[in-house]
Each structure stands twice: as C-alpha cells, then as structure tokens.
C-alpha cells in the first residue's frame, strides 16, 4: 500500500520577462540547487526526477532527455509529464505518486519555461484541433475571455470585479514576493484604463509570460522526517482533464473541472468545509476574471457569488482566506513551472518558510493548476500528516 508523502524542499528562480544569462538547462539548475539547499540535500540524494514544460514553447523534443544537464541526471531515472497549463501541477502530482508508490524515496519535480524564446500565444494556439479549431482560437487569453463573457452575462459580473483580483495579486507580488516577475502595485483604475486584448479582458487583467523554473522535492514519510522537522504533507490530490474540443469546455460560466478536482482532493484530505479549513490558497488564476468566476468551483462561495466574495476582502492578505500571497500567475507565468510554483508556494506556507508573504499560522494550504482544455489539478498540503 502507498505511504505518506511530503514536500521537503522548494526552489525557484527569480522570474523575469527574459533571462538571457542562462540557457534552459542552467535556468533549471538554479531552481534545483535552491530546492536542494533548502532541504539540505545534494543531487546524489535524489532517486528519481520528473520534469515538464511545453515542447513548442522552446521547440525542444524529448525535454526529459535534454533537461538532464540541468540537474546532472547522468544515470538517474527521469521522465516527462506534459499536460498543457496543468503541466506544473501534473509534474507535482507525478512527484507525489513516485514517492507515495514506495518505488523512490526522494523525488525531484521540475517545471520550467523560457517563454522569451518564442511567441507563446502562437505556440498555445497549436493546441487546438488543427482542422476544426486552430484558426479561430485566440490563445489562452481568448478562451478565458470567452468564458468570462459568458459569466458576466449569466451573473452580472463586471470587468471591475476581475480588476480587483488583478490588483490583489499584483500588489501581493510587489509587496511580498522577491521571486515574482511583475512587482508593481496597480489600482483598479490602472487595470480599467489598460487596453482590451480580448474583450472583456484588458492587458492588466492578464498574466505576463515569464522565464523561470521551479523545483520541488517530495519524500516518503520516513525520509521526509529525517530531512526536516516540518515538511508539507500531501493530504489530497485531485485532477480532472476532460474534453478534446475547446468548444466542449469553454462556453460554460464556471470551471466544472475545478469543481470535480477539488471535490476529489477534499475527500482524500478529509476537508468538509473548505472555506473554514483552508488557511491559504495558491491558485492558478491566469486572469483576474478567473479569480471571480472560479471561486464557487472550490466551494468558497455560492454559485454566481464570485463578485461579492472578492469584494468582501476575505481573500486579501489580512483576510480570512488569503489567496495568492505570492502574487500568483497574474504576476508570474513561466507556464510549465506555474502549476508547480503554486504547489511550492503552498508548501512554503505550511512549512512556515514563506518569509514576507507568510500567512501567519497557516496549516492547511490549497494549490491549483489550470490548463489544456480547461482542465484542473488540485493539491492540499498540511503542516501535519493528517488534519486535526
């Protein structure tokens, strides 16, 4: 039977719009070295590696093989997991399954992207079915914008509601997170006066594209306890990746995949009242709109209650459920790393290592991943091996 598993180390680069002083493998090495240092380990202690990114963003085929130069993977077990925007969270889950299976004790999970090497939106567009959908998809921005137009229509939400999320995340990044890419405080007025890039979303509603890498180290129970006094225990994982055609997934004003993935993760972790039981959340919100429309999917508010929930301020740093102390995806989006950064940031919170962005006393953290055909991954981490 499987065994308890925890996160024992987290490392990430200082994300930027471009990092020309590193090639991709050197970028990975920075994150890996920081993760190893944070756990007091060396690369010799790593039993297996999982890596992920998107092939066409850097045009590298078989990245698992290429990436070994980023962690001296010579004579190590390595494999690659790629599921679109959910790649980072899927890599994290794969790291968890590696360790939980008992086949490997200490497992390194790596997500990375050097988006500055190509035209990210063009590469994203190629994820559409090439005969039916590719020509009219406006990239991830277009999908999110379409979804929010449907949400606005159904629940009367506004562009300003989405701007509030953008302001929250951008300000958190600016004030608290030295690793974030965009570190400038903005106001709702700033967001609303930025130009539309895909109606109803404006430039400052959206995430940037970033260069960066993240590494998270998972360990089985026995090893985890030896490595640190306070690991981040993985209590729950959930994942829902449905649909082949975007047409089947987008024209729905919520995020059914997130609802399903969080339900599975809550069940596994024993969470019955997510709003009360979760202390902090690191959510893959690629646009401010998602921070409004998807709140109900995790059970944080009632259906259509997103705007009211955000306006109440409970998700601010001093609120009852702080969301994205790191500044989230709207401040940093190195796509293949993004989902793993959410897991890493959530782990830092429950390990009490989140420094200036620490939510005091955080014990239970939620991390999500989003991508592909509007897919979701959910991870629940806890400072203890089980909920009280």
């Amino acid at each position: 039977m499987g065994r308890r598993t925890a996160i024992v180390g987290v490392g990430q680069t200082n994300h930027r719009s471009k990092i020309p002083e590193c090639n991709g493998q050197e970028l990975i090495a920075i994150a890996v070295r920081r993760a190893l240092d944070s756990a007091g380990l060396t690369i010799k202690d790593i039993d297996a590696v999982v890596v992920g990114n998107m092939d066409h963003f850097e045009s590298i085929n078989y990245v698992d093989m290429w990436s070994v130069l980023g962690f001296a993977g010579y004579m190590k077990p390595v494999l690659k997991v790629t599921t679109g925007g959910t790649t980072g969270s899927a890599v994290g889950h794969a790291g968890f399954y590696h360790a939980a299976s008992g086949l490997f004790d200490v497992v390194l999970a790596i997500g990375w992207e050097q988006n500055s090497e190509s035209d990210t939106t063009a590469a994203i567009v190629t994820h559409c079915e090439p005969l039916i959908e590719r020509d009219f998809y406006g990239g991830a921005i277009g999908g999110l914008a379409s979804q929010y137009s449907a949400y606005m229509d159904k629940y009367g939400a506004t562009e300003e509601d989405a701007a509030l999320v953008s302001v929250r995340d951008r300000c958190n990044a600016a004030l608290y997170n030295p690793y974030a890419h965009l570190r400038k405080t903005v106001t709702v007025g700033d967001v609303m006066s930025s130009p539309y890039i895909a109606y109803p979303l404006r430039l400052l509603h959206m995430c940037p594209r970033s260069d960066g890498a993240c590494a998270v180290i998972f360990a089985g129970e026995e090893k985890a306890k030896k490595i640190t006094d306070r690991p981040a225990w993985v209590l729950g994982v959930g994942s829902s990746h449905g649909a082949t055609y975007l047409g089947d997934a987008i024209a729905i004003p919520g995020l059914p995949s997130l609802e399903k993935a969080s339900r599975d993760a809550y069940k596994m972790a024993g969470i019955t009242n997510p709003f009360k039981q979760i202390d902090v959340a690191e959510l893959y919100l690629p646009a401010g709109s998602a921070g409004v429309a998807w709140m109900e999917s995790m059970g944080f508010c009632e259906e259509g209650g997103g705007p009211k929930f955000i306006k109440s301020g409970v998700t601010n740093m001093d609120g009852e459920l702080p969301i994205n102390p790191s500044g989230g995806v709207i401040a940093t989006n190195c796509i293949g790393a993004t989902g793993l950064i959410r897991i890493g940031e959530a782990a830092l919170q429950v390990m009490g290592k989140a420094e200036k962005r620490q939510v005091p006393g955080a014990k239970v953290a939620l991390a999500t991943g989003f991508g592909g055909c509007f897919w979701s991954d959910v991870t629940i981490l806890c400072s203890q091996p089980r909920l009280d």
Partner: protein
Amino acid sequence: MSSQKQKAESSELLSISSIVDVPYNYNAGYYVSQYLRELKENKRILGVKCPKCQKVYVPPRVVCSQCFVQTKEFVPVSDTGTVMAFTVVSVPYTNPNTGEPKKLPFTCAYIKLDGSDSNIMHCLEEVDEKKIRAGMRVRAVFNEIRTGDHFTDIKHFKTIAKG
C-alpha cells in the same frame, strides 16, 4: 541559423535564432472527413449522435466523452445557432500555420447550433464587442468556392436580425 547580439561588450550575451518550420499532414480520420465532405458538397453541417445518451456532437467524433460508447449515427444540424460565449481577439500573435502575423481583430465565438448539444468554435462577421452578446442568434455563411476546409468553407457566422 544566425546569432543575435544583445550587447556590444565583453559580457555580450548571444543567442541562436532559427525558424522552425515543420509541415504536418493532419489526418482528419473518418468522422471529421465526413463532416468536411458534407460542408463542401452540400453546405450541410453534420453532427453525430451518441446511441446511449442521445446527445448530438458537432463536429462528429468517434466517442461520446460521457458514455464512452462509439457514436453510430450522423445527424445534420441547423446552420443557425446561439452564441454561448465569445471574445474579440486583438492581441497580436504569429499565425503558426504561416509564420506571419495573425490578421486582427477577429471574433472567436462558441456557437451552439440548433439540433446540437455541443458548441462549435468559429468566427463571427461582427468584430465590434458592443454589438455582440452571449445568447445572440447567428447563421452560418458558406463560401461559394468550397474546398473541404472547415475554416474557409464556412466563411463566418452572421448575426440574425431580430424580428
């Protein structure tokens, strides 16, 4: 391939630039081939029906994602439908099919055709977001010269005037 200069000093950082150009012969398979043939020959939009839940999917596909049974029956759906969601795309990007900049703006719309239970992605003639809303009724406009290509055989969807 060529190299690009970043800075003209001793710590000058270089990069390798290249156009990666990979042609693909995407294979439509059986279901989508039928769909494209009907568009071309009969200006007709085909869906496929799940024998279990009776849902109609456009474009046709081999399996019902919910029931995991093979679809067995093609059914024509209407050329009219409802816009379920939309966006007017104005962010510049490269069209990966050509390597050239994508022509902007365009309206990406998710349309539920009458008689279908799924949404198809296509473009609207209208590109002014103030004149588009979810729930709006639209009709397919077919190209006179059709080649069996979904993107061009249906030229776009046009707003159906009220009344």
